[in-house]
C-alpha cells in the first residue's frame, strides 16, 4: 500500500491494515489523532507527563489489540476515545493528583504571558477553568471533557463512557452545577 493511498484511507480501513501489522497505517493513525488524544488527556490529567504517558499507552493498546477492533460494533474514534478515557481514569485512580499538581502549571502559564495583559487575562481565565474542571469527580470531568470540549453528542459520549444517556445527562447536570458554583465564586472574588 502506497504512502499517498494510506493518507486517504478511512480510520476503519487503516485499522484493517494495522491488524495486519502495517506500520505505515499505524503511523498515519497516530499522526491523525495524536492532537485530539493529547487534548483529552491533558484536560483529564493534571500532570503533563501523565497525559503524554496516557496517550502513548492508548496508542500502544490500539496496536496490540488492532485485530479485536470491529467496525460493525463501533466507529474507530468511539473505540479509541473509550480506550483513552479508560487509560486516563486508571491513571487518576492509581496516581491521584496532589494538591500542588493543579497549581504547578498555573505558574508556568502565568509567566509566559505576564507582559501582555489581554493574554494574561485569558491565561488566568483558562487556569481558573482548568482548576474547576480538574477538581470535578472523575466521571463528571470525563463527561464535561467529551461533551463540552470535544463536542461529542450525548449518545456518543455515553457510549464512550459505557453508560446510558440518562446517566450521562445526570453527570452533566451535577458537573454544570459544580462548575457554575466554582467559576461564579471565582468571578466574585476577582471582581
Amino acid at each position, binding site marked *: 500500500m502506497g504512502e499517498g493511498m494510506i493518507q486517504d484511507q478511512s480510520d476503519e480501513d487503516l485499522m484493517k491494515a494495522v*491488524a495486519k*501489522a502495517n*506500520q505505515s497505517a*499505524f*503511523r498515519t493513525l*497516530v*499522526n491523525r489523532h*495524536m*492532537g485530539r488524544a*493529547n*487534548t483529552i488527556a*491533558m*484536560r483529564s490529567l493534571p500532570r*503533563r507527563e501523565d497525559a*503524554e504517558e496516557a*496517550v*502513548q499507552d492508548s*496508542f*500502544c493498546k*490500539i*496496536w*496490540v*489489540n*488492532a*485485530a*479485536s477492533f470491529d467496525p460493525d460494533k463501533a466507529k474507530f474514534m468511539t473505540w479509541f476515545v473509550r480506550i483513552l478515557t479508560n487509560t486516563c481514569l486508571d491513571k487518576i485512580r492509581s496516581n491521584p493528583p496532589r494538591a500542588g499538581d493543579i497549581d504547578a502549571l498555573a505558574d508556568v502559564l502565568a509567566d509566559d504571558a505576564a507582559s501582555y495583559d489581554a493574554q494574561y487575562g*485569558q491565561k488566568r*481565565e*483558562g*487556569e481558573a*477553568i*482548568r482548576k474547576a*474542571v480538574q477538581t470535578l469527580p472523575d466521571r463528571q470531568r470525563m463527561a*464535561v471533557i467529551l461533551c*463540552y*470540549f470535544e463536542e461529542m453528542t450525548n449518545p456518543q459520549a455515553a457510549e464512550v463512557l459505557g453508560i446510558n444517556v440518562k446517566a450521562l445527562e445526570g453527570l452533566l447536570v451535577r458537573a*454544570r452545577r459544580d*462548575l*457554575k458554583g466554582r*467559576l*461564579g465564586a471565582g468571578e466574585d472574588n476577582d471582581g
Partner: protein
Amino acid sequence: MTDDDLKKRLRAWTVPAPDSGLADRIVMNALRHPQKMPWSLRLGKTLETWLLDWNAGAIYKCASLAMIVVIGLSIGYSSPYAGGADTISIVDLAMGGMNEWEGS
C-alpha cells in the same frame, strides 16, 4: 450564568500542543509490543494451517493416522465375522432371512 454561557466560558481553556517528537515515541513504543489476536481468529488460523499445510504438525498427523489404523484393525478383528466372513457368506445370510420371511 446560563448553560450556554458556561460552555462558552469553558472554551477559554486551551491546552498546549504535543511535543514534536511524541508521534515518533508513540510509534516506537507501540511497535516494541507484539500484536494480540482474539481467540476466534487464532483458532481459525490454526485450523487453516493444520488443514491446508501438510507439513504443519506432521508428527501429530502421522500419529493420528496410525491410531485410526489401529482402531480400524481392532474393530475388524473383534467383529463376529472376523477371519471367516466374506461378501458371499453375508449375502447368503441375508438371502436366507428373506426366504424365511417369504415362506411365512
